[in-house]
């Protein structure tokens, strides 16, 4: 099949970018979207032209590296699917597809479709962990955890940190991302000790990095490849309120 592409090209962080036209001819509908871009790139490379930079690694929807906005929707049209798992059978012969990078102040473009997501690391650095040193852990079965609780924690922990939530949000908010981590840890007994400090620290860090606030539209949930629910954001708020009340004492 043949597809028309409009792809964002930008030489570097400060440079101005624009959409450029490419065609992917002779691609098969069994290909993944990124494999189609590989084909386009291979032909650019053979002609000695700079390949279109885009991030990917695992290509099976788990590393969170791939990050493209396809026709205005982060990760493209399929629900619960990263763009590396999006297949061309989703498109029709002759379709025109626009490909853009994540856009947010906190995710500056490095080149073409590649952005810098280190702000997410900084949010975790601020407190997204349980402070246990290696060595002193009690037996894994010492604390019983109800199955429902561990399953709910797992739902939140499934976040792959791709940043699609930020990309989709009209406010470029990181609330879904951080609430997933905050929920995961606050649900489990292991996360209790630092529960209040964690939620405050992570939120302050996200604000400092220039992510926006949340308007409860839930675009984030709709594009999340792991379908993480915005009920996590509500849980984060509850944690925050608790932290306020505790801090007030």
């Amino acid at each position, binding site marked *: 099949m043949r597809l028309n592409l*409009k792809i*964002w090209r930008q030489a570097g962080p400060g440079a101005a970018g624009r*959409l450029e036209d490419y065609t992917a001819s002779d691609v098969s509908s069994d290909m993944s979207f990124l494999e189609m871009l590989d084909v386009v790139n291979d032909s650019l490379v053979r002609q000695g032209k700079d390949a279109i930079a885009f991030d990917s690694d695992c290509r099976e929807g788990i590393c969170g590296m791939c990050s493209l*906005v396809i*026709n*205005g*929707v*982060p990760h493209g049209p399929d*629900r619960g699917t990263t763009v590396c798992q999006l297949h061309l059978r989703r498109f029709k012969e002759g379709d025109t597809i*626009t490909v*853009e990078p994540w*856009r*947010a*102040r*906190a995710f500056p473009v490095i080149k073409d479709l590649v952005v810098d997501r280190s702000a997410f690391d900084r949010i975790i650095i601020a407190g997204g962990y349980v402070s246990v040193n290696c060595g002193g852990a009690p037996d894994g079965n010492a604390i019983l955890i109800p199955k429902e609780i561990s399953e709910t924690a797992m739902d939140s922990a499934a976040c792959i940190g791709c940043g699609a939530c930020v990309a*989709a949000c*009209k*406010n*470029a*908010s990181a*609330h879904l991302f951080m609430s997933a981590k905050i929920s995961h840890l606050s649900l489990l007994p292991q996360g209790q000790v630092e529960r*209040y*400090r964690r939620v*405050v620290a992570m*939120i*302050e860090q*996200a*604000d400092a990095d*220039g*992510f*926006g*606030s*949340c*308007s*409860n*539209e*839930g*675009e984030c*949930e*709709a*594009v999340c490849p792991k379908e993480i629910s*915005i*009920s996590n*954001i*509500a*849980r*984060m*708020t*509850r944690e*925050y*309120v608790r*932290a*306020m009340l505790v*801090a*007030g004492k």
Partner: protein
Amino acid sequence: MTTRVRVFSSSVGTKLLIGITGLALFLYLVLHIGGNLMVFLGRDVFNQYSHMLLSNPLIPVIEIGLVLIFLLHVYKTITMFLGNRKARPIPYEQKKYAGAPSRKTLASSTMILSGLWLLVFVIIHVSTFKYGTEYEAPGTGIRDLYRLELENFSNPLTVGFYVLSMLVVGSHLRHGVASAFQSLGATHPRWTPRLLVAGKVAAAVIAGLFMAIAVWAYATGARS
């Protein structure tokens, strides 16, 4: 740990404040429409009711509270809106609605516009009614708000403006009511979907009733 003031200036604290003030204003609207419905019971009942309300010594205090809540809501939403715009300096060339389960609607995308409209509306509304002509209801010594209302809505332009504004109220509430609960962290696997529906119904009912009053007043005024 963080002080209270900083707590409320964070992105989550901001949501909390907007949610709480929003809900308070919504509650006020519910009471307001409840009271306004008295107008259908005739001039006397309506005037008696408003007199009872206005002569309550607590009212000025409540009014000041209400104004503060309102101003806080306005201030927080506007600063949040400006902050959020800064979070994406370079817009997308193409951006689309992501589809279910997103709650994004025309209403949710235009909260700032509907809000600003309502800000203007509220100023006009308060100055027409609260600070409008002080008629006295014949033979009672109390204020004749019934007359003021009928007079006011005798102008079709005013009626049009009110109906339009009530559509804006409906739109604001359509997203705002359920959103406020989410902002306050109130979610539940069973109740949240119902709440979402209830929010829309409440928005429609409230906006509808206010509109009905305006239209009714116009019609009644025209007949008398």
